[in-house]
């Protein structure tokens, strides 16, 4: 598939060189100061990501799934949300988690293996990370159906309304679950925005293996609008997500957003992209870096300067430091604490197994 060009079918409001551009249907109404806040979020999200990757390299995490390159897609979409919206991530949405108020140290719990996804700072409107590809899209449609029944959709006062956004990848669009989610959402006009980050790869598999047409065009076949946005342009992602969420909140049904972006790093820290892609491709995407283009623009218009950037750099250093110490300080629970976590009403058998486990562990203490 050839690279999309800016035009009606590819919403771009900030080009890779950092110039604001026009689109017939979309515009951004915020200020440059708002965009500076987005830039700060993107820089911090990248720092969260590189720090976690470094922690994995040092052996402190079992795994990490980097978001490198997808900052604009994540921050732009997340900053278009507000209460009572619901947010359903996949497993790479660290930037969305950041905007939702999840402490990055909590994210490490899951990747360090000290817990599942029990993150104390997780707000109720931000769902757990989900690792089975595509499964969460159906959950999101169900949550949107709950919103319909809760009366938070289509009220005359826009501020009362909410919708659900769900994140998934290009590869996920092949799963039956995702296609079923499209059908349920369309059938019930569920207030859900399907936010697909097309980062061009599903591990080693390029996009063309999953779809012969641009992903956003799939939506038409299911009976709702699909739109492709430059996923490295935070302004366009914000504008398109705001439009889609507002439409869903009004009760006009689902939208599929294809955020066209690039996974600049490895799939996870276990992956070696040199096995399946060329460095020339990586270089061409580096020239479209989502952070650089916004920085260029905001510097040019004078919304940020060197002092501002230094302050954000200092802030990210502090955040990284907090992640390092926080990671090592994550509480380690014994296996015995997990036995009452699987049921509301824990069967006797499990409690007996817990006691056996404890007695067995204690037998080592005695023999020491």
């Amino acid at each position, binding site marked *: 598939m050839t690279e999309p060009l800016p035009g009606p079918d590819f919403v771009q409001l900030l080009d890779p060189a950092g110039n604001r551009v026009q689109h017939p249907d979309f515009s951004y109404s915020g200020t440059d100061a708002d965009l500076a806040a987005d830039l700060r979020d993107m820089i911090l999200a990248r720092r969260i990501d590189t720090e976690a990757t470094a922690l994995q390299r040092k052996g402190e995490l*079992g*795994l990490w799934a980097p978001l490198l390159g997808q900052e604009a897609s994540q921050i732009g979409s997340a900053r278009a949300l507000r209460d009572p919206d619901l947010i359903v991530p996949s497993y790479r949405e660290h930037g969305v988690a950041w905007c939702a108020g999840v402490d990055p140290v909590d994210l490490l719990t*899951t*990747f*360090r*293996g*000290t*817990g*599942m996804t029990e993150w104390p700072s997780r707000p109720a409107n931000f769902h757990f990370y989900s*690792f*089975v*590809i595509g499964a969460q899209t159906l959950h999101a449609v169900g949550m949107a159906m709950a919103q319909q029944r809760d009366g938070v959709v289509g009220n005359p006062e826009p501020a009362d309304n909410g919708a659900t956004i769900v994140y998934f990848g290009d*590869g*996920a669009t*092949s*799963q*039956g*679950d995702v296609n079923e989610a499209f059908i349920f959402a369309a059938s019930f006009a569920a207030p859900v925005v399907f936010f697909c980050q097309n980062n061009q790869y*599903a*591990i*080693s*598999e390029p996009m063309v*293996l*999953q779809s012969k047409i641009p992903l956003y065009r799939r939506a038409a076949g299911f009976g709702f609008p699909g739109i492709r946005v430059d996923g490295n342009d935070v302004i366009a992602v914000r504008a398109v997500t705001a439009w889609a969420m507002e439409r869903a909140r009004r009760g006009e049904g689902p939208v599929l957003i294809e955020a066209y972006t690039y996974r600049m790093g490895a799939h996870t820290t*276990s*992956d070696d992209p040199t*096995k*399946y892609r060329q460095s020339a491709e990586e270089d061409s995407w580096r020239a479209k870096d989502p952070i650089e283009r916004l920085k260029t623009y905001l510097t040019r218009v004078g919304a940020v300067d060197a002092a501002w950037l230094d302050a954000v750099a200092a802030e990210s250093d502090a955040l990284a430091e907090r992640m390092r110490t926080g990671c090592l300080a994550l509480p*380690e*629970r*014994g*296996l015995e604490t*997990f*036995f009452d*976590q*699987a049921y509301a009403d824990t069967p006797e*058998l*499990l409690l007996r*197994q817990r006691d056996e*486990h404890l007695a*067995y*562990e204690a*037998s*080592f203490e005695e023999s020491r």
Partner: protein
Amino acid sequence: MTTMTMAKALNAGLRKALAAEPKALLAGEDIGKLGGVFRVTEGLQAEFGRDRVIDSPLAESGILGTAVGLALRGYRPVVEIQFDGFVYPAFDQIISQVSRLRFRSGGTASVPIVVRIPYGGSIGAIEHHSESPEAYFAHTPGLKVVSPASPVDAYWMIQQAVAADDPIIFFEPKRRYHDKGEVDLDQQSAELSLFSARVVKPGTHATLLTYGPMVRTCLEAAMLAAEEGRDLEVVDLRSLSPLDDAVILESVRRTGRAIVVHEAVGTLGLGAEIAARIQQNCFYELDAPVLRVTGYDLPYPPSKVEDAYLPDLDRVLDAVDRSLSW
């Protein structure tokens, strides 16, 4: 003789199977260019082409469903599920279609599909990457379920599985992928049939019945026990469905004591079936009840506690103590 890892032995076995059987083909996520996330299929697409080593779209139900169609038209699909925890989207196709097409067709339809599944824990992974779902499949009539424990068995069993006419769920103990062993690539045929168990260490005091990742654990336990004068027999079941009753029962009749060891949760696991068969067939020869050492009845827990969750040397030896002191 060549020394190689289990991953390499599987690769060599698949290469032989593809060369020997023109209708054999491989499919799965990331198995082509990447060679699979564990590199088990490395180099096979380059060697056999994209028609025979297929990078599938990301859809497990699709992988199995299309394998059924290919199999019905005479092909022998060997499909890879990337990790144990991702077989469930394909579960319906496996249970409702793959396992029953022969029965449904009055014995005329053949779906000789091999489903390769890296399984088991102890690799420090996140959720869905460490599970042991073998009992679901062993519980399903129409499927056969096997699991090699060593490179040489992996090499032969994968070839035998591709040649077999029944659908086979082929569980690969991923934590043993990098364990090394001797494989004779020039040998003409396998020593054992695919569905035979093997006594991997003879002994007289008690029998450890196990498979896959726990075979090495049990062998190590037997070595430690030997230092204390306990002579344990270790049986590698190799086939979980059908079970090789003859080898299992013969061993237990001799030792009078049996301990089944697996990573999968205990309730309704392989150990339950094996214990039932033993007590039905050797009730009077038993000197102790059949014991089980298994994962606890929990979803697979986070990696920091997986060592406590999984059977290990000490838990096996603890069960041996309990059996012998009965």
